[in-house]
């Protein structure tokens, strides 16, 4: 059996959730890897685009920021933010966004703004960027998190990006026409959301991780009764990831 890192497992697990033809709103880091894994392995007609305006770049080298000149090269179109977010929210397309955050709650709402009082926080993060927009407008959101109790919290310090809000039908009632988080992919497990209550539940643990491990690192109650074990990455998946997508090991390190 091939050895693999948690980061590789995350990228490949998220990549597997993509359907062919999906339009993928990618950030950098692991989300870049996940999007490219999907496109190169089982979803060749998916399109990767960036909020900065780069649509379907060649990606011969991995971009390290969404404004990296590597997202402007070999695209079908170089445009700007207005066009990108318009694509993201266009009801014609199934658009899937990858997001990370500092905090997440049981309904998949995200905080990427600050900790403590908003006006004088004790920790400040970059802010929404396009995260709130992606969470509001995309057909679905896949969330990457480090699985830690201080990140999986009962109550967010600041709600930057809307998930299922307070669960059940609340997202729809708030005025959103579609979207909501599809899955949370962490260094331990994959979580999904109950189709009725929209509460997070444990879907799959990675090989070597137990549901109890997940419970220990989650700051709110989480249903683990439906969990099974995730499939490890295949040799083929790992090989594509390592040799074609990040041969310079900029993200995989």
């Amino acid at each position, binding site marked *: 059996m091939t050895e693999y890192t948690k980061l590789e497992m995350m990228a490949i697990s998220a990549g597997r959730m993509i359907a062919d033809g999906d339009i993928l709103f990618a950030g950098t*880091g692991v989300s870049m890897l996940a999007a490219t894994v999907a496109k190169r392995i089982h979803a060749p007609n998916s399109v990767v685009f960036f909020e900065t305006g780069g649509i379907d770049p060649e990606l011969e080298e991995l971009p390290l920021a969404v404004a990296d000149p590597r997202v402007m090269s070999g695209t079908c179109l170089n445009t700007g*933010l207005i066009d990108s977010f318009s694509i993201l929210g266009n009801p014609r397309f199934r658009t899937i966004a990858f997001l990370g955050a500092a905090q997440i709650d049981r309904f998949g709402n995200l905080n990427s703004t600050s900790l403590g009082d908003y006006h*004088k926080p004790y920790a400040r993060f970059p802010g*929404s960027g396009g995260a709130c927009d992606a969470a509001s407008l995309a057909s679905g959101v896949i969330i990457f998190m480090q699985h830690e109790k201080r990140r999986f919290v009962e109550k967010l310090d600041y709600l930057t990006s809307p998930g299922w809000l307070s669960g059940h039908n609340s997202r729809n009632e708030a005025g959103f026409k579609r979207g909501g988080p599809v899955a949370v992919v962490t260094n331990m497990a994959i979580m999904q959301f109950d189709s009725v209550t929209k509460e997070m539940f444990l879907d799959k643990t990675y090989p070597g991780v137990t549901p109890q491990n997940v419970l220990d690192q989650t700051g709110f109650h989480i249903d683990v009764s439906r969990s099974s074990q995730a499939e490890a990455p295949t040799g083929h998946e790992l090989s594509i990831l390592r040799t074609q997508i990040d041969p310079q090991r900029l993200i995989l390190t």
Partner: protein
Amino acid sequence: MFGDAIDMKLMSAEEAVSRFLKEGDQLSLGGFTVSRNPMLIAREIIRQRLKNLHIVCHSHGQALDLLIGAGCVSHLEIAYGGTGRFAPTCIRFRKAVCDGLIKFEDYSNYQMSLRFLAGSMGLPFMATKSGLETDLVKLEGFPVSERGHAKIPNKKLDIIQNPFAETDDRVILLPALNPDVSIIHAQYVGTDGTVRIKGLTFADLEQAKASRHVIVTCEQILPRHFIRQDPDQNSLPPFFIDAVIHAPYSAHPTACHYFYDYDPSHLRLYQNVAGNDATFENYLQEWVYDVPDQASYLEKVGVKDLLRIRADECLGYAKGLDRR
């Protein structure tokens, strides 16, 4: 007044900043995190010790962080402060927010872009659903006492019922932005004053068109007949532009598509010094105050680094550049 010739508009960074920007102005920054930051103008603003600037941007990185760190900024409307992996959160921005040194208000990238777009079109506001029920909508950053004064709208945003929907359907209205000054960096300006940006334009065009004054730095000046031979490629008509500064590499250490990549070694240097007040002051002294113009700045960067980041003609970035 809106002359076609560039002659009246060509000037030094020093002249451009002193003529068009003043204390307390609302300033819009072009570029995005690690690309096309108007670094020369940012350094010039710091050298002229302009204070109490009210900065408006979507996602910004290097120029923003330098201006905040140098104490030029009192108010900030922003969606994102970061410089890619070199500073996942802009370092002086983070510090200024946590230490209460600036007043700030958060929006999202689309929200800020829509506000610039509204401003550029002369519309009072734009409607969106992005952000409903979030703290972006619920929490105002600026003090109530400052609302409705200067460039701060009477409310951060508003929520109304969509009059064209049959049922309950709430939308957010975002107030237009019309900054006093926009600063942007472009690859080309024609001798007629026409601006051509290659690669992604981010929201630069909306920002420029929304502003009362626009300062453009550029890599090259092209003959009028050349830039007008294919006007489909151009970005801004001359009459939007007040000042043109011909200054190659003036987005350094951020990237300028087709000309140069971002400079990982300089961004790492910055990353290492920005977190500490003393080392940051040294950086300002060494890289801003002691280098009064672009020529001396580039001498300091040095030929080796400038060549290392030079863009591949076909790809538009420096192929194989060590970016770890």
